[in-house]
């Protein structure tokens, strides 16, 4: 039987995460889907994006021909600086991360546990060297760590687990999870579902999630404006 619901696209996921970034927030966007989030911040809000390589106030991608070879983001793509932004060195950039100066760190992940553990730095493939970059700093340091990821693997296996199977990036840090199916909060009482895509039931969502889910009293539909979606 075909599912009666439509998972969010990557752009819609990014749109949803962007709605929760408050006015004036300092935010670090992880590489991957989180990076897309910058485009969906409501136009009347000022949100300041931080890049681990010493840029506070990342702007949109430069227009073709206007790239500056000395201005890249954490994904090593050309970027711009918004008015009011500034440059700092690496130790200061990570002081901002580790010291709790970022309001939100929005990360991609392979797995998240029901207690907020996150695994996003290695698949432990012995054929390749591991790489950690700023992942552990970003997971450990921000005032609030949020994850943006597909709800299940390509084969349909849950990625929200009782315990992460992959090596941890940090333990007990994730507060909110945005997936292509739902928005969930990690609480001391377990995972609470705040929003689900139209047509999704708690039972269906539970079948794709390892730990027990509870519906929030305010449970509502996760419906991004289709006009914004790619």
């Amino acid at each position, binding site marked *: 039987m075909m599912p009666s619901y439509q998972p969010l696209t990557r752009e819609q996921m990014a749109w949803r995460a962007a709605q929760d970034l408050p006015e004036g927030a*300092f935010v670090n966007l992880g590489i991957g889907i989180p990076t897309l989030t910058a485009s969906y911040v409501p136009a009347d809000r000022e949100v300041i994006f931080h890049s681990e390589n010493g840029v*506070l106030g990342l702007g949109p991608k430069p227009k073709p021909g206007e790239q500056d070879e000395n201005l890249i983001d954490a994904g090593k793509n050309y970027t711009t600086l918004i*008015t*009011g932004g*500034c440059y700092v060195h690496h130790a200061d950039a990570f002081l*901002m991360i*580790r*010291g709790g100066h970022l309001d939100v760190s929005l990360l991609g992940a392979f797995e998240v546990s029901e207690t907020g553990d996150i695994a996003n730095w290695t698949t432990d493939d012995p054929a390749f060297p591991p790489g950690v970059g700023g992942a552990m700093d970003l997971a450990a340091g921000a005032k609030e760590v949020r994850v943006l990821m597909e709800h299940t693997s390509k084969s349909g296996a849950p990625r929200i687990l009782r315990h992460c199977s992959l090596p941890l990036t940090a333990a007990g840090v994730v507060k909110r999870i945005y997936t292509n199916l739902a928005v969930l909060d990690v609480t001391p009482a377990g995972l609470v579902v705040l929003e689900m895509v139209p047509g999704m039931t708690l039972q269906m969502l539970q079948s794709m999630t390892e730990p027990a889910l509870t519906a929030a009293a305010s449970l509502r539909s996760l419906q991004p404006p289709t006009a914004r979606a790619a």
Partner: protein
Amino acid sequence: MIDKRVKTLGEAVAGVKDGATVLVAGFGAVGVADHLLEALHDQGARDLTIVANNAGNGDVGLARLINSGRVSKVICSYPRSGDYSAFLNAYRSKSLELELVPQGTISERMRCAAAGLGGFFSPVSAGTQLADGKETREIDGRLHVFEKPLKGDIALLKADKADRWGNLTYLKSARNFNPVMAMAADLSVVEVNSIVALGALDPEAVATPSIFIDRVVVVGANA
């Protein structure tokens, strides 16, 4: 629109609670937020722990807070500077506790807190009275002392220019403790000589990035 400007000194120091730890920037009389210190006096919070390099002069600013019995502890490197009678009287009457910390250790302990670290080992003060009771460790053949992070509830800062986001520049040696304290407090409040348009400060020359600042108030001729 982000706008950290507040109109009055009262708004700038609003919310300081009794028992708060207050980081007071400056070295001697330079780089000190004189107006914010007076506003804190008016605000009324008591039982304050002050972190500063010196311990106030005459009967203004920090000295006035001490004379008014509002300070229960001073963490500083050098209380004996200028007319420090306010501190001296309180010290002699034991109404105030002194924690004496080497100047570089004070600034490093605040940076440690700012950087989200749990403490560090320093060779400074090892084998001296100021290390009494502290954990020590020999590292690479040299004795080190364990120092803990030092965080403020509020920092009272003085800068030259600010924009509405709170990016700051300083004037000459008035920089001193300001950038470090700005990073190390939950609430960082700055008095400035002037506000400039967003984008007017050179992004390569911002001395305190906006992320560390919560409230900005203009003092002096431009207020």
